[in-house]
């Protein structure tokens, strides 16, 4: 038997007082927004930290065994990449040089030096899968030019535009073009240059000979049909222990795991999500408990009439469920606006669609149902006999 045989008691109780409904939904929406934002920041952070790795145009990579994050680059000799290219399964190998600590861009309008992440590789290798870099390969192959990430923070570097001339770590450079990559919490801006320019600006990356150049990431493109596990085994056997072999997916997972759990910036935001959940649960509990308290005599009357505790529980849980859906809808709307605003302000990759909206919905429903179940406990102790007192 449907409770109340189509009398929508839960809905009516929830929506009876419009100001109260607004406050209830606002409370739930606040929690939903908090969870979305915290989770959004977490995902934005993790996504931003693997931004460069995701764009590496290869299936496998070689990195230094001591590299624990790309933001603190450790290197290995270029010779290992040449050795790896010797394997028949490897179609090509490209060196990528990264500096995160030693590159400083002089802001043209203020003259201030601002630290910038610089990535270098042979332009003809297309090591990064970014259309503008591929299309403008000739332009940035020239000496003393760089390609600039237009999503870099303008307030830090000024506007990155083609033709702008300034200094990179003491050397005059011209911006040959721009591309879109995105920043992260370690870097407010990115520049890409050819390996030749890179060696001029950062001679410490060079060595006594070409094969001694200090590569940060070696990008391997493998022939179609190659078994990556077998290739990894073969590479490990062929190369000495001063280099580590990873698939691109493993490299991404490793980088994410570092920022998520070791750093542990991701965990901090995850705690934020949990806090949002707890705050939301408390708000929902208060809302539902207050509503039940106001209607205790009515519920006691239902109990006297023969309604079971389970049936009364169902009313409160339905009320909690409706509250969760309304709170989620309102929270989602607010979050869409906030995501857009945060992306605009920080340039962080705030993408709601990558933010597990269904997981947040499930969390919201669980949050409301859980707090509803807690609030409904008072119904068990309702004594209909007191109505005759």
């Amino acid at each position, binding site marked *: 038997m449907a409770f109340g045989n189509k009398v929508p008691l839960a809905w009516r*109780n929830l929506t009876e007082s419009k100001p109260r409904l607004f406050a209830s939904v606002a409370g739930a929406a606040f929690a939903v927004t908090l969870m979305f934002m915290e989770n959004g920041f977490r995902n934005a952070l993790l996504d931003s930290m693997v931004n460069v790795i995701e764009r590496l145009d290869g299936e496998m990579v070689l990195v230094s065994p001591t590299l624990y994050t790309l933001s603190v680059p450790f290197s290995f000799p270029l010779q290992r990449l040449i050795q790896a290219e010797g394997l028949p399964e490897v179609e090509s190998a490209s060196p990528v040089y990264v500096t995160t600590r030693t590159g400083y861009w002089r802001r043209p309008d203020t003259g201030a030096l601002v630290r910038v992440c610089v990535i270098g590789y042979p332009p003809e290798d297309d090591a990064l899968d970014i259309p503008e870099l591929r299309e403008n390969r000739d332009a940035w192959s020239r000496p003393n030019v760089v390609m600039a990430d237009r999503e870099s923070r303008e307030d830090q570097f000024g506007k990155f535009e083609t033709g702008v001339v300034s200094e990179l770590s003491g050397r005059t450079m011209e911006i040959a073009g721009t591309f879109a990559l995105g920043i992260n919490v370690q870097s407010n801006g990115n520049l890409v240059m050819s390996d030749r320019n890179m060696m001029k600006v950062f001679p410490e990356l060079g060595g006594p000979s070409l094969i001694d150049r200090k590569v940060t990431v070696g990008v391997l493109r493998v022939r179609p049909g190659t078994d990556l596990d077998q290739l990894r085994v073969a590479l490990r056997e062929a190369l000495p222990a001063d280099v580590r072999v990873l698939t691109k997916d493993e490299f991404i997972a490793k980088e994410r795991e570092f920022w998520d759990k070791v750093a542990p910036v991701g965990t901090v935001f995850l705690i934020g999500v949990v806090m949002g959940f707890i705050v939301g649960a408390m708000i929902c509990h208060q809302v539902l408990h207050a509503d039940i308290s106001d*209607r205790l005599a009515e519920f006691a009357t239902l109990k006297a*009439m023969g309604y079971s505790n389970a049936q009364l529980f169902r009313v409160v849980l339905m009320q909690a469920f409706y509250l969760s859906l309304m709170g989620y809808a309102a929270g989602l709307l607010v979050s869409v606006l906030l995501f857009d605003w945060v992306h605009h302000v920080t340039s962080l990759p705030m993408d709601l669609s990558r933010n597990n909206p269904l997981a947040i919905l499930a969390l919201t429903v669980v949050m409301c149902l859980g707090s509803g179940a807690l609030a409904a406990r008072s119904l068990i102790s309702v004594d209909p*006999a007191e*109505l005759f007192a």
Partner: protein
Amino acid sequence: MSSATLTSSMTRAVNRPAGEDIVIRALGVNYAYGTGETRTQVLFDNSLEISRGEVVIMTGPSGSGKSTLLTLIGALRTMQQGYLEVLGHNLSRAGEWERARLRKQIGFIFQQHNLFSSLSAIENVRMAAALAPGAVKKMNQRCEAILDRLGLADRTHHLPAELSGGQKQRVAIARALVNRPRMILADEPTASLDAESSQTVLDLLHELAEGPDKTTVLLVTHDQRVLDRADRIVKLVGGRIVTNTLTKVAVRICRALAATEALKGLGEATLSRLANVMTVEPRAAGETLTRQGEEGDRFYIVGTGVADAYKDGRFDEEKCYGEGFGMISSYFNRPIPSTVVARTDMELYVLTKDDFLNALADDHSFEARVRNLLANLHPVDLENH
């Protein structure tokens, strides 16, 4: 404990149920709140039998235990001690599930209407209607019909906030009655109603009690209009039932006692006291009930059946329902005036000498009058009276 044991224990005429279909059987019911040093007993050894279709008024001062007894009968509390059977459910050992099942057969009317402010009048009634299996369309028809019967046809879709106090209470009554419950338990149901609404509600309750469903109605009330229409009045004082009177039997006995020559002059209060202590005795057809000239120690009133009275061996008169015979010779100083033989199986209401004397103890005027008569008249004259 068996039902038969319980029934046989109810020998006072006015205590007995009006019919054979017993819906409430209570024996030795005790109840206490709290435990240990805070334990307070509020019901003491109460016994009661009520049959289907009775309208029972429970009265008594505040704190007398009437609400507690009502909540026990309504399966709203767990029994502690004694035996209680309601609508065939043994509540002495019923769990919460069985008590909830029983409550679905009971209509509750509380002093407060306790309507959901978020639901319209008809939706509040439908909350109760939904407990009875059936099609939604019929359920709605039932709800509309009961609201219409209570004069709320034009208020069915109004929220409680849009109704007057009396209208709210009538919606609550409609909610209690919509499933045609086998029993109605009501706490001051007419307290917040005007005279016309009260009359409507009382008419409806009596209709239910007298109609084909023969609904049993238990009301806690002090409303005189309700008292006048009760089948039984149960009064509790200090946690004990001090009066449990089936009114029509009490009235019948009082009338028979008042018509008895020897008891003429008894006040209404004394007659009521006598009626309340009379017991019931079954007698078989052909049995000689009294013998003329013998010493008697009882008065009899015919409850059911017919008897023949003989004087000096000759048929004198027929003794039917409500008529009395017998004599308490030691008090009136005269023998039994006639021989009475049961023509059919009979049920007699019996007043023993001890009960008679106890009941008379407070009626000094009657006793003085009898003594005066005894002192001044010859025994033959007294016999003629």
